[in-house]
Structures are given as structure tokens and as C-alpha cells.
């Protein structure tokens, strides 16, 4: 079996992360940290007397590994 190249590893790493996060799963990468998706509900934001309605959204959150 041929050993995968660095590009193959990076591409697979990226695809897996994208897929897992888009389906709502958190991904733990040893030595790096944990990627997760957090939901932010719709909210009214006030700045300089201007009120804005923010739509709901998902946010990618990264928590670095402490010991690394």
C-alpha cells in the first residue's frame, strides 16, 4: 500500500472536519484541540441607539488542547 502524501493527509483532514462539523458533531484532534459547532439563536442587538435583529447562526468554536 502506497503511503499517502502530505497533501493527501491535509485534504482528508479538511474534508473530515468539514463533514463532521456540518452534521453537528464535535471533532477532537489529538495534540491540537477540539472543533465544535455552537448555535447562536436570533437576537436583538443595540449599538449607538440602533437596534438590529441578528438572524440565528451556527459558529465554529475551537478549543486548543491545554497540554499541547
Amino acid at each position, binding site marked *: *500500500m502506497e*503511503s*499517502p502524501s*502530505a497533501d*493527501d*493527509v*491535509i485534504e*482528508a*483532514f*479538511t*474534508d*473530515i*472536519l*468539514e463533514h*463532521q*462539523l*456540518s452534521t*453537528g*458533531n*464535535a*471533532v*477532537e*484532534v*489529538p*495534540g*491540537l*484541540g*477540539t*472543533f*465544535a*459547532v455552537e448555535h447562536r*439563536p*436570533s437576537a*436583538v*442587538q443595540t449599538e449607538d*441607539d*440602533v*437596534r*438590529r*435583529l*441578528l*438572524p*440565528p*447562526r*451556527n*459558529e*465554529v468554536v*475551537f478549543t*486548543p488542547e491545554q497540554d*499541547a
Partner: protein
Amino acid sequence: MSNTSIPPLLAERLDISEERARSLLDTMVEELRERAETDGVQLSGLGTFREEDGRLTFQPSPTLRRRVNRPYEGLSAESLSPSAAPEEADSDAESADSETPPFLTRKSSAEEEDAAPDESGDPEPPSDDQDRPPTRPDADERSVDSFALISLILAGLFLLGAGWFVVNQTSLWGPTENATPSTTAETPPDPTAGSAPADSVPGSQPESSPSATKDSATDSEPTPAVRDWTIVVASSSSRSAAQEAADTYGSRFDSVTVVPGTVDNTTWYRVTIGRYTSETDAERVLDDRADALPSDAWTHQLE
């Protein structure tokens, strides 16, 4: 939300052992952390890693942000006027509780207004009175006007009926066989009367009926391709605001529509342009017409 460990998935994807995948991953992570300490590392389609104040940070790429926000694509922040804001917030809260779209909430308040004249005893307001404001003084005036109008209509109908009776009895239009067509001519809304004149052959009536023609036309129609992809150019939690935006784009594009969608139990109205059979087609138009579209226009698959 489940927590997934990446080495087994990487091993499966690269068709290697998990031990080998873990080794390759360690090498990649070590390299990534070293580069992040200096000028950052950008992984295409994923994001950028940087070391800031001794802490590793990650900034997701627009592609990744879009991917995790598929259910909310095309939704953007909107300004609320100070007076309208509480109402909007209230309607959102109501819709979140009862899953009732805002436009239905507004409709129910309109129904309450329409109910006021009924409570005052107005028997049947004519259609030309519907545009009047439903205040009680006007309702009284309308009651008088309605009575006079109905009386006139009844009197007219009576005179028509009396005239018809006299004409039939005196046989002014010849034999009674011809009286039937004249009656048919006075009732144009009845489609069966029009398709079945008195001298037509009874057996031919079902074959020439409009419904039969309609059925044969329906059978011959080809099945259209599913065009469930579109381009979202604006969004709002208010239908009227979305319609205003749609009117703006309507002068530049052919098929501009406002599409309601429920997100987090709240109805949002997306302003969409075009219908396409695939995401690729929608993205091609997005690229070709980039100069006429807003920078945050997104492709979107309709449910």
C-alpha cells in the same frame, strides 16, 4: 452533539491503519503548530491557525462558515426602527412559541378589526365598503347606505322577474321552443347551459364537456424538471420589508420572489432570484451576474 475522534476517520478515508493515521496526524499537527507560532497557517477550505499570546487560535474560512450555516443561508442582520422594534420582537416571540408565521399574526389582528362592524349589527357589508376604516360612526353610515343599496338591487331584480314573466306569458318572442335559449342567454355564468343548447344532440354532451378536454390536456403535459435551487439576495423577518427589497431587484431580474422559511421556529422571508435545477447552475449565475448581485448573495436549496 457527539464528540468524534479523528484518527479512525482519517484511517478509513486514507485506507491505512489507525496507527499509521495517528502517526501522520501527529506529524501534521506538529508542523502546523510550529508554523502557527510564526506567521500562521491557512488550510484551504478549513481556516487559519495562529498563535496569539501563547494560545493557539483558529479562524474558520468563509467556506466552512457557510457549510455549517446551511439552514440559515441567506439570512442577514436587519435594522429595526425604534418604534417598530418591540412589535417585531413580540411577533417573533409569539411565532417562536406557537410556530405561527408573523403574517398570520398580523392577519388575525386585521380580522379583529373586521369583526368590529359585525358586532355592531351590520348584516352584510357590500364588497365596495371593505376599504373603509372600520370605525363605528362610519359603520352607522354604511349601514344606511347598505340598506338603500340592497333595496335598489331587490327592486331591480323584482322588475326583471316581472318583465320576464310578462314576456313569456304574452309569447312576444315566438314559440316556446325559442324561449329556452333566451333564458339561457340571461344566465351566462352557468357553463352547462352554454355548452348544451336546446337543439344539441344529448348524447354528444359528455364528449364535448370542458372537463374532458382539460383532463386530456393534463395527461399530455411533460413532467417538469425540479428547479429547487435559487439565489438569495436579501432576507428579513418582515414580509413587507422583504417585498420592498424584492421590488428593488424586480426591475433588474425576471423572476424575483419572496420565499418564507421557518428557522428556529421563526419565519424569515428570503428574497430569491431565479430557479435552477442544480447548485452548479445557481453558482454559475451567481458568478456571471456578480456585478448586479450583492456581495453576500448565496445559493440556496428550497425545501
